[in-house]
């Protein structure tokens, strides 16, 4: 297997005595399309929060390209190449579509770039670049439109474009297909395939299994904060522990 771009080991996290992550390990090879699945409350989003630096784990290490980034603050992780989207859309409601995407470029800006009046230049390179990525995803850049007025599916896509604007090496998407219709889901899959071919490593949390199978070669399954399966996507359907987790026999206990 190729050298992992992202590797987690021994990650534990409790909230008020409730163990949400228990000794989680994960290794994602460079260029992989990696799915992270599991029943509601399994700890998937919490694991994303640990990787992106929103919360610090109680124990364990997060390694990016062999470097320990467990103590690196969130704002520097995006500079190191980790970008993400959110399960509940978190675009900036009072910024326009293009401004939201330009915010995604923030981590790449130089000090001089931070003080260049990009907003006064309708044809600044930053703006043109943001519009180009939006258009590549089939989105109308709605130059000045404030995002809070846009439909859910469109906002969902804009959030992915915002994360891509950071030019990440690892893109983490938390339920990107949720709330999208069949055609939109297919378009999303094709778009993400293109992103993957450009060399970006994908980690995708998703409940839509056909989508997972069509996109990802490798699946990690979590349940009650533990990894219960980690292997090829093809084998996940037959795995007894996974079946049990999804059929719910283990609910309420320390099952699987």
């Amino acid at each position, binding site marked *: 297997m190729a050298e992992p771009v992202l590797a987690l080991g021994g990650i534990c996290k409790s909230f008020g005595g409730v163990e949400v992550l228990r000794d989680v390990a994960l290794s994602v090879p460079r260029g992989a399309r990696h799915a992270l699945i599991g029943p509601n409350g399994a700890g998937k989003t919490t694991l994303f929060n640990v990787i992106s630096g929103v919360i610090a784990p109680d124990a364990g290490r997060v390694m990016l390209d062999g470097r320990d980034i467990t103590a690196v603050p969130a704002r520097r992780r995006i500079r190191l190449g980790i970008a993400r989207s959110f399960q509940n859309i978190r675009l900036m409601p*009072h910024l326009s579509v293009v401004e939201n995407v330009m915010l995604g470029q*923030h981590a790449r800006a130089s000090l001089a770039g931070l003080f260049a009046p990009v907003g*006064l230049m309708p044809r600044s390179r930053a703006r043109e670049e943001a519009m180009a990525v939006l258009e590549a995803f089939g989105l109308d850049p709605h130059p000045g439109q404030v995002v809070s007025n846009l439909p859910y599916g469109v906002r969902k896509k804009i959030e992915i474009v915002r994360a891509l604007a950071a030019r990440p090496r690892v893109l983490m998407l938390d339920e990107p297909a949720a709330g999208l219709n069949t055609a939109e889901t297919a378009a999303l899959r094709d778009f993400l395939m293109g992103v993957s071919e450009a060399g970006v490593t994908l980690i995708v949390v998703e409940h839509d299994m056909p989508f997972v199978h069509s996109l990802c070669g490798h699946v990690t399954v979590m349940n009650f904060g533990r990894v219960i399966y980690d292997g090829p996507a093809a084998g996940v359907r037959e795995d007894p522990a996974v079946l049990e987790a999804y059929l719910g026999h283990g609910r309420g206990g320390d099952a699987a």
Partner: protein
Amino acid sequence: MSGYLTGVLALLAINVIFAYGIFITAAAGQLNLGGAGFQAIGAYGCALLGLEAGLPPGPAIALAALLGGAVGFLISFPVLRTRGVYMVLATFAFAEVVAGVILNSERLGGSMGLILQDYVDIGIILPVAGGVVLFAFYLMSTRVGLAMRAIHDDEAVAELMGVHTRAVQVGCFALGGALAALSGALYALYYGFVEAQVFGPLLSIFVLLYVLIGGTQTAWGPLVGAAFFTLLPEGLRSLAAALGVEPELGRAIEESRFLIFGVIIVAMMILRPQGIVTRDLLERMLPRRRRGAGHG
């Protein structure tokens, strides 16, 4: 230009600078109800630099603004540990401390105030105000301005996008403090005296209202808000004069202007909680920019 008009313009320009000082933090999501404290620091700082150090107006104004910036920088650290209504209270308490220090200091003239020997007229004040407005528009058009607006909307996500939210917030308090102090220095030099009572709680409340009613989403907000609130009382006064009402009635209108203000503010909060100038409003008023390819 008539003396009356000059007076209105000078007050407008000072209020506009003051409003931008409060806007800078509000645009990044922090409410500063300590405006009067910063303005007092600028006014008294400028007065003392002239009276005791013998500095001419130019350097005195610049140093007074720097002093306000330094105080803004320093108090941002305790203030930024608080959120929401507690931040409002913390900044308010700061202004009360400043007022208390002035009232109890003989050197600062206590409740008698200080009389300045220097004077600046609108030939100085108007260009300075113009410069502040241009600077605010420039700042809000940079990535730093974008980061400020992002912090206003969602601090945690702004941080995840690579924004050093703490540095931006501290910078906003420092810059805001400097601008408010600048307005105070100009106030002192224009009116020729400083008096602690002027820099009371009502002033802090009014300047924050200028900003909130004007709107914090764009750099137009404080300009519109300050103009609205400075010119409204003058407009009411002129209206009374034009209608030829009795002097007593005119005075009654003037005295009830807080009441009229209150009614307008409540109406605004209900009708336009985001302020007069919003992004949406500008979008509808300005010609449509180039559209990209349509959907699909």
